[in-house]
């Protein structure tokens, strides 16, 4: 499935916090949590593959994923078993915050199933500086 989320295009009412009308790092985290909890097997955000060491971190107005600074619009692609979109759409992690923000503040949001979908491999360092594997692979 593919998810696209972008800042709201609504006119911000006077006195309201403009930050409510942009995609926040928490929105991306909630979407990713919902996807993993719904059985996603692989996820990318704007082409950045998520692995065991991937963080989604807000830095100013940008979002740092792996070594890439990303800005909206955000395109999140996920591979998973049939019904992933339905499971995601009803997952509490999605419904709890981000779904409400989409409705209340007009964040631009679209989702659709996609088949086939090819996700880029992780581009980064997989070598440990501190951890040592403690057993041989059979």
């Amino acid at each position: 499935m593919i998810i696209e989320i972008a800042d709201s295009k609504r006119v911000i009412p006077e006195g309201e916090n403009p930050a409510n009308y942009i995609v926040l790092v928490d929105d991306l985290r909630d979407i990713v949590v919902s996807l993993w909890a719904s059985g996603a097997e692989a996820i990318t955000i704007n082409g950045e593959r998520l692995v065991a060491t991937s963080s989604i971190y807000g830095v100013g107005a940008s979002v740092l994923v792996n070594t890439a600074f990303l800005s909206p619009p955000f395109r999140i692609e996920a591979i998973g078993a049939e019904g992933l979109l339905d499971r995601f759409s009803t997952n509490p992690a999605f419904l709890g915050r981000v779904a409400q923000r989409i409705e209340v503040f007009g964040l631009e949001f679209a989702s659709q199933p996609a088949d086939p979908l090819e996700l880029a491999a992780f581009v980064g360092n997989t070598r440990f500086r501190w951890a040592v594997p403690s057993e041989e692979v059979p």
Partner: protein
Amino acid sequence: MKSRVAQATLFAVAMLIGLLGVGQLNSQARPIEISRLSAAELSTLIETLTARNRELRSGLADIREQLRQYEVSGPQGDSALQVSREDLRRITAFGGLAPVDGQGIVMDVDGDLDAIALNDLVNELRNAGAEAIAVDGVRITARSVAIEGPRAIEIDGVEVGERFTLKAIGSPDGLLGAMERPGGIISQLELFIKATIQIRQAESVQLPASAISLLPVVGKPVE
């Protein structure tokens, strides 16, 4: 069996090496407006960029050495196989499928955290450079997320109580500093959720392999 292991390893590693040619700090869409960042955000940005650049330089040096090893051991089957076994061991451990040991930190958490807070903790550790993480013995993989279960928070189907131990392997000073920075995740949890968190550095943190299967049912590797 040996040839299949070598082939699988070389395939995995070749994918990795082949993609690293375009791996670099990249910025998509609009650049960060430095002038608009607060002092705290600038500090975070500098630390993050420094850490990322260090990782990339280290990774590039390692890959060059790896290529040299392959070139040298190419004609020698057993040597190439040994190199492949080491790579497979490392990649498997990186993914969370093998136990690991190393320096790091141990956090004892006591508080009514919800799934969001626990996921935030894990995210902070990853951003601080944690190479491997486990929560009450549950190894965190790419797919491991905390969710609200019927009775308690669950990770990979395992319940996490109000008191749990979080262990992470990585730079002890880096991890501790990131967790304890003023206004950081620990101070926020202690303030808003009334959690008690005790954190200490450890010379040897042993983390088990994940108990879940990461074998994709739908996804297939692309050659």
